[in-house]
């Protein structure tokens, strides 16, 4: 089994991507709504990721 050695950002990015795809597919009723919801969820994940990252950076100084 090949090994993956990811940084926090890369792992959280992949996590966000996979979860957003599934949430987009299972939650809404039309393809357009599904796509929009998937993108919305992914953007929310990224905003939270960068927001918490900066928060921890300033909290650590």
């Amino acid at each position: 089994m090949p090994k993956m050695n990811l940084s926090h950002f890369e792992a959280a990015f992949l996590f966000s991507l996979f979860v957003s795809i599934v949430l987009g597919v299972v939650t809404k009723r039309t393809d357009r709504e599904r796509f929009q919801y998937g993108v919305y969820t992914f953007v929310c994940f990224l905003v939270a990721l960068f927001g918490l990252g900066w928060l921890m950076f300033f909290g650590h100084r």
Partner: protein
Amino acid sequence: MATEKQEKQPVPPVSAWAPAVALGWLIPGGGHLLLKRTGRGWLLMAAITSMFLCGLMMGGAMFTPQTGDLLTTLINTGGFIGDLCSGILYLLSVWLGYNQPDMAGHVHDYGTKFLVTAGLLNLLAMVDVYEIAARRKE
């Protein structure tokens, strides 16, 4: 005033949804494919399988049910159920001897979360399959 009672939806017969839900558990996305939702089925299969494989390649640990104090029971049994929800992915990896001990380090930790989350996402997909088979959703 909104005093209307919500109409109770009739419970569909087990034979209408059980095969699709069972296939959805065994093969992520399989239930959607059985119900001819091919695009969504392949997307689910790709996302859930990729997440599970990433978890394996990161050296994530599989949970085994353990009893003890409440938190230990909750985490280990809940994690085990999450792992088990991945269906054939979990079964194959266990049968082929995947046995990664729980180790310190952020990559292993992410791997463990990826494995459990893949199962939980498959659970969501199974609920979606049930709703489609019960004709509550397209």
